[in-house]
């Protein structure tokens, strides 16, 4: 938004047209990950850790390049290595940089109960404000991409910020800065979309990947991280990238109709009870008929 203060709307005592009026500056940022030119060097992982001040954690070895199984609360950026056998029997290594997708319609934000713990900026960045996070983990339920991760020590949830601290200062995210092949790009959403489509067309028409395409899923309103895939028809091949991601319907139901139903029922119940009391009044004990009390308590035979 800092650009807005350089954008002139009116100038006093100025004859003629005003420079820049009518210019449409796009705020929406986007990271483009071209999986077809990624070499799996993990430079983006290192840059992410360095910039965000995290140290390397224990790795694992399971006879693949995958030395971390998935992103963690202190490991926000991870290349997913997938060995894919093609129809002709040859093997292809599909590498996808996994991180927060920065959805336009974020499920984490929809599910979060804590005031100000998740913020969506006008440029599309979704950022967690850990000071406001209560550690309930609802964001983990709302996210269709398995991104927010809980830190048992901090008891708060963390994820990729799209380097909001860098972007707000006019810098590109750390992962972009570190990428040696140029498979990572950063710019406005429309620029990146155009570049991605150009590359996908090239892949289809020149490189023989007939199903190449851009991953910018509509189900979450589009994302501010988009992919170029060799096979856009099967995004699941790229380490579980969902084909049609959307905020879980149970989260929608819970935060929508159920909330209104519940609120109306609770308020209605209290009002109903007040009306009941005003209409029928209290239940009072009644004196026991003297005949029953006279002399002695009732005999066992009088029990009902």
């Amino acid at each position, binding site marked *: 938004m800092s650009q807005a203060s350089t954008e002139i709307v009116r100038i006093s005592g100025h004859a003629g047209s005003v420079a820049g009026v009518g210019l449409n500056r796009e705020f929406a940022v986007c990271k483009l990950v071209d999986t077809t030119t990624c070499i799996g060097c993990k430079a983006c992982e290192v840059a992410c850790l360095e910039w965000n001040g995290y140290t390397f954690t224990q790795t694992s070895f399971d006879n693949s390049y995958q030395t971390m199984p*998935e992103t963690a609360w202190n490991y926000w950026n991870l290349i997913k290595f997938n060995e894919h056998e093609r129809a002709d029997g040859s093997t292809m290594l599909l590498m996808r940089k996994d991180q927060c997708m920065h959805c336009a319609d974020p499920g984490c934000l929809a*599910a979060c*109960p*804590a*005031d100000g713990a998740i913020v969506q900026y006008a440029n599309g960045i979704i950022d967690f404000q850990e000071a*406001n*996070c*209560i*550690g*309930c*983990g*609802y964001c*983990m*339920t709302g996210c269709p991409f*398995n991104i927010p*991760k*809980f830190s*048992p020590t901090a*008891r*708060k949830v963390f994820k990729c910020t799209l380097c909001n601290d860098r972007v707000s200062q006019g810098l590109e995210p750390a992962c972009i800065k570190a990428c040696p092949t140029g498979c990572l790009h950063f710019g406005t959403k429309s620029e990146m979309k155009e570049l991605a489509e150009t590359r996908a067309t090239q892949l289809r028409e020149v490189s023989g990947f007939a199903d190449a395409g851009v991953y910018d899923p509509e189900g979450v309103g589009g994302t501010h991280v988009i992919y170029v895939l060799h096979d856009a028809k099967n995004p699941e091949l790229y380490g*579980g990238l969902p084909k049609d991601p959307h905020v*879980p*319907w*149970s*989260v929608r*139901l*819970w935060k929508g109709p*159920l*909330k209104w*139903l*519940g*609120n109306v*029922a*609770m308020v209605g*119940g*209290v009002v109903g*009870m007040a009306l*009941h*009391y005003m209409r*029928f*009044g*209290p*239940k*009072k*004990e*009644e*004196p*026991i008929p003297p005949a*029953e*009390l*006279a*002399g*002695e*308590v*009732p*005999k*066992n035979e*009088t*029990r*009902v």
Partner: protein
Amino acid sequence: MTTDAISRNVADRNSDHNEDKIVRYTFVERVNHWIGAFSYIYLLITGLAFWSPYLYWLAAIVGGGPIARSWHPWVGLLFTASLFYTFTEWRGDMAITDADRAWGKAIPDYIQNEDDKLPPVGRFNFGQKLFFWGIFYGVILLLLSGGVLWYTETLPWSLRFVRYAAILIHSSVALATIGLFLIHVYMSVVLEEGSFASMITGYVTRAWAWTFHRTWYYDVIGRSKPKQ
């Protein structure tokens, strides 16, 4: 508690006044009730804070969001323990009988405070029994779904549907228990005079027992009578 225990506590058993006291709840039953009540109120305050942004301020009055998040599950366990103790004590008294079903058919009379038209009932009426079993089975569901929400991060991604189910079950069952809770508080604190005091002092008057729980009243009084 057993009926014999109640009858041992019948105060001033030779008097025939309406205001004679009968023990309705033992000391242990009352303490357990208030452990359950206060833990439920805490769960209600913190739960409503998580439920709606317009009620998030409720978390502030019990120490803030992160503390509410940390304590809510533990207090939930305390409430469960209190309820399960109640279950072991009152299971028999809460069994639903044919008399209850007859009483249930006359529930419009009960709602309109025409209690003299109702069939006599034992220690607890059908409404109280439905309340008890509603809370009992509700808490089992809340416990299971709450466990999932407590340790959401330990659930593998492939089992995420369990999270989706838990979040719906926990909120909708909690709403159902809130409905039961509101009715319970209204009836015992506001509507039925003498009920609230009985859960503090343990006593009801003989006339109260005769009016609202006649079968139980005869049970207590009849047995307290020296054998002839």
